[in-house]
């Protein structure tokens, strides 16, 4: 089963995806995770309605849905990994469509940066997401983890010591 986090990790690092999917997690001693949770929990406090859609194939948890304006909101701490966030929200829109919920757009909110990005789903995106989902299945079902990626952000990744020791 694929979920939003998998999509995120897929674009971030396939090894991360594999380790995470196999439940090989590092100790959660990262302040980042903590702060991330806080921002997500408090920024949208008043109209907070987490929406979950879970079936055999997909699982998504959206931070907030504005039904009237047909907008899916996603809240993020930092806009450093914007590209990833965009794909995550596109995937949400894709799953909504699969359920027959059409015409939605996405909005990624970065409260700290006071910034928001609009996201729409194109035909091209739909094909890409289909391929990505297949790819994800292949990755998480492979016996060995994918290799380390040697990117600069590895140093900030919770798996850094595990990957490079």
């Amino acid at each position, binding site marked *: 089963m694929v979920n939003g986090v998998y999509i995120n990790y897929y674009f971030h690092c396939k090894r991360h995806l594999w380790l995470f999917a*196999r439940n*090989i997690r590092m100790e959660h001693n990262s*302040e980042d995770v903590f702060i991330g949770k806080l921002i997500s929990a408090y920024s949208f406090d008043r109209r907070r309605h987490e929406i979950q859609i879970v079936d055999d194939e997909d699982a998504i948890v959206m931070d907030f849905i504005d039904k009237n304006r047909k907008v899916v909101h996603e809240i993020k701490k930092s806009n450093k990994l914007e590209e990833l966030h965009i794909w995550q929200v596109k995937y949400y829109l894709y799953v909504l469509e699969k359920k027959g919920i059409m015409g939605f757009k996405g909005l990624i909110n970065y409260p700290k940066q006071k910034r928001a990005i609009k996201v729409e789903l194109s035909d091209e995106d739909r094909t890409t997401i289909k391929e990505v989902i297949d790819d994800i299945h292949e990755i998480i079902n492979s016996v*060995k983890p994918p290799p380390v990626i040697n990117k600069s952000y590895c140093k900030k990744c919770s798996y850094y*010591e595990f990957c*490079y020791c």
Partner: protein
Amino acid sequence: MLNAMRNYYIFKSGRLSRKDNSIMFETQEEFKSIPVNDIDSLYIFGEVDINTKALNFLAQKGIVVHIFNYYGWWTGSLYPREELLAGEVVIRQAEHYLDRNKRIEIAREFVKGAIHGFVYNLKRYKHKDIGKEIFQQLDNYLNLVNEQEDIPSLMGIEGNARDLYYDMFPNIIRQDIEFDKRVKRPPNNIMNALISFVNSLVYTAVLKEIYRTQLNPTISYLHEPSYRRFSLALDVAEIFKPIYGDRTIFDLLNNRSITEDHFDKDLNYCYLKETGRKIVVKAFEEKLNTTIKHKKLKRNVSYERIIRLELYKLIKHLLGEEVYKSFRIWW
């Protein structure tokens, strides 16, 4: 946030309890409160009363508690329910135990790590000359490790190498201390008492690190999986006993921080007095907190962290991605 976490050692007798988000320790004279988030692991040497409320709290916070008896011997650890569960890792651990070839491959690395530790220590700490033939002999044992096809003979090689190493202790230790033969249960002289005590510190340090990974502490390779001990911690401790444990002992004896006065003798036992335990624990703790530049990670890591990295390497071996090579001291 969690960098402030550390190991706490309780020597006095008293009462441990929970108060809000803290662990309280109360003795006749004093009252101490430790925020639970500061505690990495807890060592109890004193006679301590503790209730389930406190135990539950410690367990819930993932704090491993080690308990020692009157003589300072480790008697058990409270190993909380695992938080970092991954069926994947446990299955592969078992797979590597059940397959003889896979098992011995890992076991050999533990023995090699231990023997390398002996060699490094003899080279670095000798004050009287140690004959070439001793190093040749140890080298020989190292080569023999690869040829052993079953666990008992592998254990035998390790035992021989260890005997040779212990025989050289008089060339390392600058105090006149009685040390005929390594006797474990119960330690009968000062040196044996010291080794046993320090080894239990290494063992418990490894155990705590295992708790912080997905590894199951009871599935082991060199030692038989055992219901009385966390045998994987015994395995991994083999590597760190010479480098972390014995080196602490050499330093303490050679600068006379520990002398005969720190020991008591019973009819059959020899054991460290409280004053001695405190000195040893402090020295060992300092060792664990020492940092060193890690070549591959390109960052400073503590000796304690190196134990964790060793476990990560083992996990990667179990996942089939990188052949495990045991730790060699690089500094």
